[in-house]
């Protein structure tokens, strides 16, 4: 028995065989308050799936200030 099934992935063009797409492009970005990774799949040069995931590192801090008595 042979397994003829091929992995599929959902894209803007519907479900496509993973093997039809260009190699996965992984793009990392880092800023002071976040890190981002983008998984990009292309078909004939066109982006058909772009999957971003962001890790928030250290965002908002509020300062509480007690006013001085003058």
């Amino acid at each position: 028995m042979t397994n003829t099934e091929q992995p599929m992935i959902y894209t803007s063009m519907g479900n496509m065989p993973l093997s039809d797409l260009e190699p996965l492009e992984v793009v990392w970005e880092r800023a002071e308050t976040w890190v981002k990774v983008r998984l990009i799949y292309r078909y004939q040069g066109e982006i058909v799936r772009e999957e971003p995931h962001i890790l928030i590192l250290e965002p908002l801090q509020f300062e509480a200030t007690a006013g001085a008595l003058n």
Partner: protein
Amino acid sequence: MANTQGIGAAAKQAALSSIVDSKAMKAALYLVSATTGPTNTVYTATGEVSGSGYSPGGVSITNGNTAGLTSTTAYWTPSATIAFSTVTLATAFDAVMIYSTTDSNRNIGIFTFGSQTVTAAPFSLTMPTNDSSTGLVRFA
């Protein structure tokens, strides 16, 4: 030994608790071209993203944490990743508003993360460690 001026730590925690503890919250995404910010008192649809798979108002946030306190810093962070299941958002966005539906959509905070689009895929915002140095909202 000298006296020290400052807002009481317990008061800070109480202030933060009053806006986050046990509140139902949502997260909405905003276009790069929008002008959403701290001056927005409540959630607004103006400048919000639109696209396949995205519902106006955004997604619900898992809020299993209450305002914590370490030393003199109160803090709070959503207790799970903010996740948008398969969406297509073709116009660049760079901000999320966390708002409380319990309190008439009060704006809790706007967080920016750099320009981004999504094509036929999930999008997630993973929260920082919930402590006094990296918590999403800190009252120091």
